[in-house]
C-alpha cells in the first residue's frame, strides 16, 4: 500500500512537470521542466521493472535531450513569442 | 470558431485516451502472453543472454534494431545536410 502511495506521488510529479512544460513561457524554464520530467519518467520506468529503459531514458532523456534543447534555444532565442 | 474546434478536438482526444485507462488493467496484462512467456522460458537458452531484453533487441527482434540504428544514421545525415557549407552559386530562387 505504501508503495502505491509513493507511486502515486511520482505519477503526480510526472503530470505536474508535464503541465509545467506546457505552461512556462520561458523556454529555458520549459527545458528545465523537461529535465525534471525525464528524471521522473526514468524513475517510473525503474519502478515498472524496466532498468534497460531507465538507463536509456537517463542517458538520452536527461543528458542529451536537455543539451540539444538548450543548444536550439541558444540559437533561436529564449522567449516564446506570442502572437499579438 | 477555430478555438471552439480546437477545444472540441482536444476534448474528444482526451476522452478517447481515457478508453485504455478504463478498459486495460494495469498489472495484469493481455489475455494471451504467449510470445513473452516464450521469450522468458526459452530466451536464455536459445540466445545465451541473461538479459532477456537484450536477447530480444539483438536476436529475436534484431531487425528492428537495425532499422533503429538506421533511423539514427538518417538523423545524423539530415543534421549534417542542413548545416552543410553551401558552395558558391548554389542558391536557388524562390518567388
Amino acid at each position, binding site marked *: 500500500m505504501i508503495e502505491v502511495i509513493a507511486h502515486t506521488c511520482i505519477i503526480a510529479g510526472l503530470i505536474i512537470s508535464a503541465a509545467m512544460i506546457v505552461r512556462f513561457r520561458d523556454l529555458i524554464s520549459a527545458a528545465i521542466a523537461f529535465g525534471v520530467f525525464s528524471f521522473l519518467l526514468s524513475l517510473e520506468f525503474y519502478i515498472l521493472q524496466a532498468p534497460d529503459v531507465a538507463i536509456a531514458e537517463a542517458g538520452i532523456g536527461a*543528458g542529451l535531450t536537455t543539451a540539444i534543447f538548450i543548444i536550439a534555444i541558444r540559437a533561436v532565442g529564449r522567449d516564446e513569442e506570442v502572437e499579438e | 470558431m477555430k478555438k471552439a474546434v480546437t477545444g472540441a478536438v482536444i476534448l474528444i482526444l482526451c476522452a478517447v485516451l481515457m478508453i485504455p485507462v478504463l478498459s486495460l488493467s494495469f498489472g495484469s496484462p493481455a489475455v494471451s502472453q504467449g510470445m513473452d512467456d516464450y521469450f522468458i522460458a526459452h530466451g*536464455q537458452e536459445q*540466445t545465451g543472454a*541473461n538479459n532477456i531484453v537484450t536477447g530480444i533487441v*539483438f536476436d529475436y527482434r534484431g531487425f528492428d*534494431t*537495425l532499422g533503429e540504428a538506421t533511423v539514427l*544514421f538518417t*538523423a545524423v545525415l539530415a543534421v549534417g545536410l542542413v548545416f552543410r557549407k553551401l558552395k558558391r552559386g548554389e542558391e536557388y530562387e524562390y518567388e
Partner: protein
Amino acid sequence: MNMSRIVRTVADISFPFILIYGFYIVVHGHLTPGGGFQGGAVIATGIVLLVAAHGHEAVARQITGNLLKNAETFGLLLFIITALIAILLGQGFFTNWLANTGMLFGTPVAFGPGPGDLNTAGVIPIMNIAVGIEVLGALSIILYYMLSGAQEAR
C-alpha cells in the same frame, strides 16, 4: 567560451570514468541492464560533457568529427555484416550463429538465475559493441553539428 577551471578539471577527470563505465555497460549488455544503445548514449554524453567544459572546437581537435563519423559507419557495417554472415552460413538473416557453439561468446547457458558469464550469448555481444560504437558516434556528431550551426546563427 568555456566553463571555469573547476568544471574543466572535473570533466577531464570524470571523462575516462564515464568512458570505461559506458564500455562496461556495452560489454555487459547481455548480463546486466544496458546494452549497445545505453552504453553508447553514456559515452556520447561523456563527450557532450567535455564539449560543455572545453567548447567544441577544443574537443574536436582531440576527438575529431571524422573519427566519430568513421566510428558510426564502422559500427553500422559491423552490425550488418555480423547479421549477413548468418546467410553465408546457410541460415537466415540475423540468426544468432554463434550462440551455444562453444566458440568465442558461445558458451551454452542453462535456464535459470545465475551470475552470468561474459563469454556467452553468441553474436549479441558483437552486435552490442557495434551498436555502441554507432550510437556513440552518431549522438556526438549530432551535437557537433548542432553546436557549429548554433554558432553560425549568431
